[in-house]
């Protein structure tokens, strides 16, 4: 557990372009000191607040008040943070860029900083790093430095360029180093950060920030699981997470309702687009053997993955049943007891043995005339009775009963598997939570309005206008019939039955 090194180079060094580096998942340790360390999603800033930019001599405030003796006031640290407007601007800028919600704010931060630096005459010393698609962006100003001690790398503004207003700026995109990255604004970091220290988000005083190289299972056991369990899944969770994650930016859902019940809002994440920053890969802090506490880490992980799976279904509800037509042969029997649980219906056989609607003139499967055959009713497994074509082009194959609505899954018959939920998302809000039911009876498809607030309208093909359904009174859907609920509309089409 302690040296979960294998994953470390995986995401850390190569900066594989396919995925955004899990910037927000790695630990950031803060060394004690007078400056300000700010961590925001995707951004890590160390800014000097000890008035260094204005020159060390200047701050020696001259107490010129008559009658006052000079007190041994540690005036500088106290006054400076509040007073330095540039620090405030800088932090606000970082916050804005981070909140803009890009998955990797590095590039944008880089641009905004450059334009900001152009307007500021004497910017504070700072070092900021932010995630980019394939590495980090680094901006160093004044006394800001970036170091990778393990690899003997060091960057200072002196290696950068000089802006028009005389500010030395180092501003470049770098590969995320495979070892801890120290950022400081120039203050001497005499004390090493505590190995368990970790700043998830927020602004705290500190001399330097140490960005861990790559995701690691650095699960700090004793610390409240609230922080780590979310950001550092156990290694085994890596695979499902990374496969599930990319398509669905359903971020807040996976994070917030985590059953552990931690208060996430307190971490200043509210309002940010979490999706971009929640990265699947775990974060091994290779350098620091973390505290041994496997259990708390592993426990939440499956929960999280479960939630992630739930997420997409909510995000794209109308599409949810789409796979059914194709996947059905395998899924239907799997869901039910094999074979016999499938709904049966009495129909006629075509000459080639396919079950058909007794009213059909031609077999739906092979096209042969059914009228040549003696119409003996035979019970068999019911084929799909047609499909609903929604106004967004989604189709739903009708192989069982459906409950349509805004929150169909809250119905107990859905929970019991008696009805299949069919989520109808409607911007206008005209769709009730449980709006209507589609019932398959024999070879008929019935539509029942289950007492919805705004009602359901139907129009048979060619009808001049809409007619309203009487609640709880089934209506047989005929091919081509259009149904409207709220702002949504779908049509029923069927290969079966008459025309």
């Amino acid at each position: 557990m302690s040296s979960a090194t294998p994953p470390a180079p995986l995401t850390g060094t190569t900066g594989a372009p396919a995925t955004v580096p899990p910037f927000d998942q790695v630990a950031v340790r803060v060394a004690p000191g007078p400056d300000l360390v700010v961590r925001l999603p995707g951004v890590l800033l160390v800014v000097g607040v000890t008035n260094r930019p204005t020159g060390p001599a200047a701050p020696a405030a001259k107490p010129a008040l008559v009658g006052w003796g000079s007190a041994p006031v540690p005036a500088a640290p106290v006054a400076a943070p509040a007073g330095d407007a540039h620090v405030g601007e800088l932090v606000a800028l970082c916050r804005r860029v981070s909140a803009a919600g890009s998955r990797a704010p590095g590039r944008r931060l880089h641009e905004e900083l450059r334009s900001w630096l152009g307007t500021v005459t004497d910017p504070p010393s700072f070092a900021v790093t932010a995630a980019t698609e394939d590495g980090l962006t680094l901006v160093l100003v004044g006394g800001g430095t970036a170091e990778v001690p393990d690899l003997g790398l060091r960057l200072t503004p002196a290696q950068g360029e000089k802006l028009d207003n005389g500010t030395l700026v180092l501003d470049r995109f770098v590969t995320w180093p495979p070892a801890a990255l120290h950022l400081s604004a120039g203050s001497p970091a005499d004390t090493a950060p505590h190995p368990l220290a970790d700043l998830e988000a927020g602004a705290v005083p500190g001399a330097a920030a140490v960005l861990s190289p790559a995701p690691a299972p650095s699960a700090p056991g004793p610390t409240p699981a609230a922080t780590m369990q979310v950001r550092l899944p156990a290694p085994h969770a890596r695979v499902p997470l990374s496969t599930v994650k990319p398509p669905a930016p359903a971020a807040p859902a996976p994070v917030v309702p985590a059953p552990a019940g931690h208060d996430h809002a307190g971490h200043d994440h509210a309002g940010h687009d979490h999706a971009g920053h929640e990265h699947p890969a775990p974060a091994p802090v290779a350098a620091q053997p973390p505290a041994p506490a496997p259990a708390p880490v592993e426990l939440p992980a499956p929960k999280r993955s479960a939630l992630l799976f739930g997420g997409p279904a909510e995000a794209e509800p109308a599409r949810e049943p789409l796979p059914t037509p194709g996947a059905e042969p395998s899924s239907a029997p799997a869901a039910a007891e094999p074979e016999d649980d499938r709904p049966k219906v009495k129909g006629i056989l075509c000459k080639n043995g396919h079950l058909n609607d007794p009213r059909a003139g031609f077999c739906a499967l092979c096209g042969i005339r059914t009228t040549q055959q003696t119409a003996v009713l035979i019970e068999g497994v019911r084929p799909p009775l047609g499909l609903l074509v929604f106004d967004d082009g989604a189709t739903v194959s009708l192989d069982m009963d459906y409950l349509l609505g805004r929150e169909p899954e809250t119905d107990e018959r859905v929970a019991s598997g008696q009805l299949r939920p069919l989520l109808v998302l409607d911007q206008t809000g005209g769709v009730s939570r449980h709006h209507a039911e589609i019932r398959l009876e024999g070879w008929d498809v019935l539509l029942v309005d289950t007492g919805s607030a705004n009602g359901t309208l139907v129009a048979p093909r060619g009808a001049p206008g809409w007619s309203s359904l009487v609640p709880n009174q089934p209506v047989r859907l005929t091919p081509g019939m259009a149904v409207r609920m709220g702002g949504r509309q779908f049509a029923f089409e069927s290969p079966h039955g008459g025309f």
Partner: protein
Amino acid sequence: MSESTIAPQHAQTPPQPGDLNDQLIASDFWTDQMLAEAGIPVVDVPFVTFGGGIGSFVTVDYLRICGVPTSAMRVLTPLKTPWESYEYLTTVSQIPRGERLRSDSSSCPDNIWGFPSYAIREALQGDLKQAWNVLVEPIFANYYTPRAGHAFESMEKEMYRIRYPEMVVNGQVRMVRRRVGGGYFTILTPPEGATPTRRIAYRSQWVHVAVGYPGLKFLPDLQRYRNEHNDYSKVVNAYERHEHVYERLHQRPGTVLIRGGGIVASRVLQRLIDDRDQRGLQTQIVHLFRTYVDRPHGTGILKRRKGADGWAYQGFNYPKSVWGGQLKQQVRKSEGEERARLYKEMGGTNTPVRRDWKEQLQRGRREGWYRVMIGSIEEMKPVGDLVEVTVNTPDQGPHTGTFDAVIDCTGLEADIREHRVLADLLDHSNAQRNPVGRLDVQRNFEVTGAQNGGKIYASGSATLGGPFPGVDTFFGLQIAAQEIADDLIAQGFAQKLGPGRSTSQWWKWVRNKQI
């Protein structure tokens, strides 16, 4: 898969009163005694027609006009109206009532005289353009064809005029067998519970078989796709209901693969492009031809058929002279191999020229949303919401593409053996196949070899390949009815339709007087 789910019930058929027994099923000739023993009631009626589609209707119409009373004829059919099946097929293949048919209409199934024709009737109702059209076609105008709805409505009128409903008996015909002592037994299975016995036998001297197409035959790859993926929505045949395809294209743009180069393909294309034009859709169309016709073709200078852009153009499914010209004579006199060769020459997939529709395709080619491929479908499988189709092209190897829908417009007809009654005729009543493989009929449309002190007649598509080629058209059905009526008149069943009778009957038709 579908077979397996229904197997169990097959084994035990509970013995019902008046059902067929093994002895009956195995015997080519039945005696009255055998039916009595089986408990099947026998109904006597001289003339029985079954199928009950337009073929039956036209024949009965002719005989009624020739003075045969309704009591002497029975129509055994599962259909509610004679045009039910036809209307279903035309509707799903994109010719709803308001559209014009694409098949020959030189005759009217509701009017044995053919006068006034549909076009004249339309002109009398104020649409003079149609009269002009028939005057100058096909040189200055495309062939006139009636609206589907017009044909059905006029048939309905005629149906009540000849008291057709009085003759209809609802049910399925199971088989026809010859009777010892002359005549035939036609076994009818009425709807369950409609009669005390399971079967009823109709004892008649003449039987008319008009079961029409044995059925469509969906191509094996389409059937396989449905069986394997249980998906009936994305790969469809043009002869089945597939409105959802158009509906979906309306909701979101898509690419459709059309397969086939016949009338139905042209009709489906027209629907797609009409939708595209009227609703402003962005439908992309890929058209797959198996054989690409790029120039006029034919066996001789006088037997040329126009062709271009993959299509073989012809006014109707056969050259016009099939209905009344040299070809009709030529085929009538031919037999065996010779006839098969003639059929092959004049047959083949073709499409009537329609200016509006050709303009549409030209526009599609120009603007790039109508593209043509040559080849055959190798494999189809669903990929997400689409269908992935692998096409084997003769010159460029396999191609793969994904489509929102595949519309199969190949109209394959099943073998006549696929129809149980026709198969029974072949097996037990000495019926033969003609050179084209269908039911062999004589010039008077009696089924060859089935004479038994009476005759079995057949008309319609099942008899294609006989001495008269255009049997599966309105006119073909009417020609058959005429031949059958003449033959029956000769046998004394009906009265001769001489000038006097014809004129008086025509006036009755004009006045819509019930007979």
